């Protein structure tokens, strides 16, 4: 049976992961079980890749569980029981580590409302944040890459010095040939592996505090939605490279600051995946309706950082523009008045 549900041994209700205590807890009777001590059913059952079921039935009510092909944890749409789809979390699809949620749903809502109120350019109707359509706690699949790079750079640089002698100004340019060999290692570079998550949004959610990375255990998923990865580590390597190449170029430049100008004839970066771990990271996904448009925001489920493009009020943009311009103009006029002892009008 690939469907895993957590039933309270005391009262039989469904149990979910609780952020405050970090335990699997029962909302009916208050029982709290330490996750470390629960035997993980995934370690006992082994599901073959071909066994992946087309249809899952809720262990509580027997209804068909509605999911899409990438979901690995959800709740039954009929009875609300938290269910984990075991066969989507084993074998190649088994996450190595997980950062459990540390921001609860209530805290997430509160933090999001606060974030909306702080929006300096968002319309007033949006700032009240009263149209939150849905908030979902989602474990998003990420690859954490350890990347080793060997960088070889050939180029040329100049050092320019200007000095005066008599009636002449001399410009002396020394030409150099430059060679750099650099080893650059990056650890735990996160790249989101879910097709449905916006890459730009996920990049902005960083950083996650990796001290809280725990070994993966299925009870963490109880009560949340989880996705399995859509792309494997090889497929996402180009994105990881894009991300670190910016850093690498910055590092190369920092080694040639002694020169007035540098041009690189040849830059070779050899990137090797030293390690790629499949992990689940906590994200609150917030859907918001405002004036017939849908907005999606994401919140780092560990740090509470909110990202996402809010609507922009044209009136507020105009007001800020006029205000800032007027104040700068007045400041310059005051400065001028003080410097020349009068106005220039």
């Amino acid at each position, binding site marked *: 049976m690939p469907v895993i549900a957590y039933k309270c041994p005391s009262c039989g209700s469904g149990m979910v992961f609780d952020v405050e205590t970090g335990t699997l807890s029962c909302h009916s009777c208050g029982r709290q079980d330490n996750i470390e001590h629960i035997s993980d059913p995934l370690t006992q059952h082994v599901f073959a890749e071909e066994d992946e079921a087309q249809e899952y039935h809720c262990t509580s009510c027997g209804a068909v569980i509605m999911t899409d092909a990438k979901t690995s944890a959800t709740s039954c749409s009929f009875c609300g029981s938290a269910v984990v789809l075991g066969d989507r979390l084993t074998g190649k699809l088994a996450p190595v580590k997980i950062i459990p949620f540390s921001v609860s749903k209530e805290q997430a809502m509160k933090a999001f409302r606060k974030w909306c109120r702080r929006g300096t350019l968002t319309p007033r109707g949006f700032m009240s944040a009263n149209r939150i359509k849905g908030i979902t706690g989602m474990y998003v699949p990420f690859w954490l890459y350890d990347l080793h790079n060997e960088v070889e750079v050939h180029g040329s640089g100049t050092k320019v010095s200007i000095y005066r002698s008599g009636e002449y100004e*001399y410009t*002396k340019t020394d030409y150099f*040939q*430059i060679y750099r060999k650099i080893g650059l290692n990056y650890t735990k570079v996160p790249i989101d592996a879910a097709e449905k998550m916006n890459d730009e949004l996920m990049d902005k959610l960083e950083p996650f505090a990796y001290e809280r990375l725990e070994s993966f255990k299925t009870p963490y998923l109880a009560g949340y939605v989880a996705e399995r990865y859509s792309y494997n580590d090889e497929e996402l390597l180009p994105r990881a490279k894009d991300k670190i190449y910016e850093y690498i170029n910055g590092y190369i430049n920092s080694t040639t600051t002694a020169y007035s100008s540098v041009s690189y004839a040849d830059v070779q970066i050899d990137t090797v995946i030293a390690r790629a771990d499949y992990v689940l990271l906590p994200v609150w996904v917030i859907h918001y309706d405002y004036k017939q448009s849908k907005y999606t925001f994401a919140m780092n489920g560990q740090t509470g950082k909110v990202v996402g493009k809010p609507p922009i009020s044209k009136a507020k943009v105009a*007001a800020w523009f006029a*205000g*800032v311009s007027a104040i*700068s103009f007045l400041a310059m*006029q005051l400065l001028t008045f003080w410097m020349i002892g009068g106005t*220039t009008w």
Partner: protein
Amino acid sequence: MNRKYTFFAVLFLIVTTLVAPLQLAAGEAASIHNKQLIYDEAGLLSQEAYNELNALANQYGVENETDIIIVTVNNESAIDVKRMTQGFYDEHAPGYDKPHGNAVILTLDMHARELYLAGFYKAKLYLDDKRLDRIRDQIAPDLTAGNYKQAFETYIQTAHEYMGFKPGVNPDNPFYKVWVQLGISVLIGGIIVTAMVYRSGGRVTVNARTYEDAASSGIIDNEDTYLHTNTTKRKIEKSSSGGSSGGGGTTSGGHSHSGSRGSF
């Protein structure tokens, strides 16, 4: 509630529109007195141009409490233009506040094709040698070309404009121009608002340090080979404003003045 924001918009409008009326109001109060400030002995101006320029000189003179005077002479007896200017001041005793008072004089010697600018008292303080040099540089091309009316107008306006600046300040610094300041403030507003819009969706808060394993990263090998040197030389321009500039002096009547001399 949008009032708070419209307030800024209105403030901005008020500040910009204030510029124009103030300028007009200042101009109107002037042209009441109409004393002779232009002595066109060489007959360079038509009656119409003369009236226009004399009125302009009167108007601006009031604002600066300084007589803005133009003297043109054929100078057949070939007197030095500077001495002629000093002589004119001693003899005619011009001055806005009193005889031998605040005055700036432009003398045109049509014989030697030389001009001299002199500032007395308040004009000596506000129109020092350097500023008179600047005025001379601005009008000399027009004088050479024979556009006397245009040159005189520039002289009157520039002398008036420069007297609005505290002594010792460079009056041609573009920062002091209203339209430059307006441009800069609009630019600042634009940059700040663009940054605000850009940042409204959240920022990337990781950098190169975040994921770098500093312990195992670093330069393994480097080589910097000297190839050759290339040296160029350039003659340093002497900063002289061209022409002969005599600077100021003292008249035989004992009035000290600033001055700028040149040919056209």
